[in-house]
């Protein structure tokens, strides 16, 4: 799925960016006695974004850790049903993240909350990653549900 490829590429860039940012910070501190303000804060802020961008690609690729001891003993039809149930679980978690995330962002925006450090980044900008991740999870799980339904119909034909 092109969207997943884009999201996982972005996640990769975030990791490369974090690495370089921290490394430049170390180099400047030890070699030039210069401290970059807010590196810790910036990289911490990137973690929610990293997770929320990658989470939907894990859903699409079925890469989340689960225990499938009992599932493996079920018939193919039952396995398909449980796979759909799993997608519904992802969908529900995504919806909850989306709804509560929008509420959180709106609250921070309305009261102009800022991060407590010297950078003073508006909280709502950083918090946007949560509803975004929720939305991506909803899209990913709906797509999986749709494709599993189509596969079942093809099997019946």
């Amino acid at each position, binding site marked *: 799925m092109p969207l997943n490829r884009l999201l996982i*590429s972005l996640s990769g860039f975030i*990791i490369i960016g974090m690495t370089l940012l921290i490394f430049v910070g*170390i180099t400047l501190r030890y070699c030039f006695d210069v401290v970059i303000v807010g590196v810790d804060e910036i990289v911490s802020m990137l973690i929610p974004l*990293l997770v929320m961008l990658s989470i939907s690609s894990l859903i699409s690729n079925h*890469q989340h850790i689960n*225990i499938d001891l*009992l599932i493996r003993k079920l018939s193919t039809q039952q396995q398909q049903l449980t796979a759909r149930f799993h997608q519904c679980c992802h969908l529900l978690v995504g919806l909850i993240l989306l709804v509560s995330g929008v509420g959180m962002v709106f609250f921070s925006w309305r009261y102009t909350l800022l991060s407590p450090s010297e950078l003073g980044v508006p909280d709502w900008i950083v918090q946007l990653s949560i509803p975004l991740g929720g939305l991506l999870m909803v899209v990913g799980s709906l797509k999986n549900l749709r494709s599993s339904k189509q596969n079942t119909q093809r099997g019946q034909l």
Partner: protein
Amino acid sequence: MIVGLMIAGFILLLLMGVPIYAALSLASIAALVFIEGWMGIDQVADIVFSRLDTYMFVAIPLFSFMAHILSKTDAVTDLYSGIQRLSRRFTGSVGIATIGVATVFSSISGSSVATSMTLSQVSIPPMLRHGYSKRAAYGLVAAGGTLGILIPPSIALIIYGVLADVSIAGLFIGALLPALLLIMLFSLFTIFQQRHAAKNTVVTDTNEDLPADNALKAPSFRLFFVIALPVAVMTGLYSGAFTPTEAGAAGAVGAMLLAALVYQSFSIKSLNESAQRSAQTSCMVFSIIVGAALFSHVMVVTEFPTLLVSIVASWQLDELTFLFGVMFIILLLGMLLDGAAILLVTTPIVLPLLDQYGIDRVWYGILLVINLEMSLISPPVGLNLMVIKGAASADIKDVIIGAFPYVLLMMLALALIIVFPGIALYLPGQL
């Protein structure tokens, strides 16, 4: 009662094959709604965001990035051949080389799954060629792989350090002697096992008359740099020059330099692939962290830890009995649950009890992680068993039987560290 229902719901969802993060999240959200009504849902995003927005967690993707960069070079093959070359005059040299590679690779990757997957590809074929039984080879690789979550930079120790609010550098240094103890026990067992096998079979892994692997000709200077990287990173961490997060970034840049200058296998494409793989593996861990944060929140809201403390206090157990009891419960959980889930779910519950008994949090952290190591090779859910089954196309029964002696060795190590806490606490005390 709500906590009981939440735990029951979590287990039910797990048994239905629902991913751990979703099972934890949904069971906790249901409990929250039960306690606070639909308003409970409003808190979910806040809890998730504040848990993820933690500076110390940045170390997880960075160490993972370092491991993925190195896994694209021939570093592991070089390590394997170098250690085998050093130990080839001894009985069980190939096995010892496997443990050596597991040790060094663990210190690069911080992940057991990555270590076992790499070892399965690098170590099992030569062990079988050198006369090891399938069970011995699978068991050794499974056990060697578990060292990944104990040897620094262990991701499990980073997570525990954040949850328990203890120094991650202290945990890392505290894990060194216990890791050495396990390495020693594994090596002695391998030598004993191969000596015993040598009496019964013609082909044995004893010596230099066996055909040398091509990789044995790997240049020593490459090996030097591969070993120097984790040593430099850890030295920077222990000396206080780096925070754990900075150590991860320095390690990743060091790995890039190693890949570019020593192995000449560095490209933008491989860098991107490594970064993307580490994003995915980190996200697997973080999604469970998110679920566990919701779970812990419900625990706090219901004041369950306080209740538990009062119940356990009424039993009037001594410190050792309490610790053995907790370890036994975690061992049982380890047979059914993933290690990360156990760590994240049990730690907030156990911490108040530790404080009540005056048990050092670093000591407990090391014991917990060794116990989680056992869970990786305990059936039916042992992750390393599944990794080896998949990577080596092995019969799961052979893998389980082969790994069983190592579970016993880990239990021995655990008991020794409980009885002699100095094994885990001596080095942190010197910091």
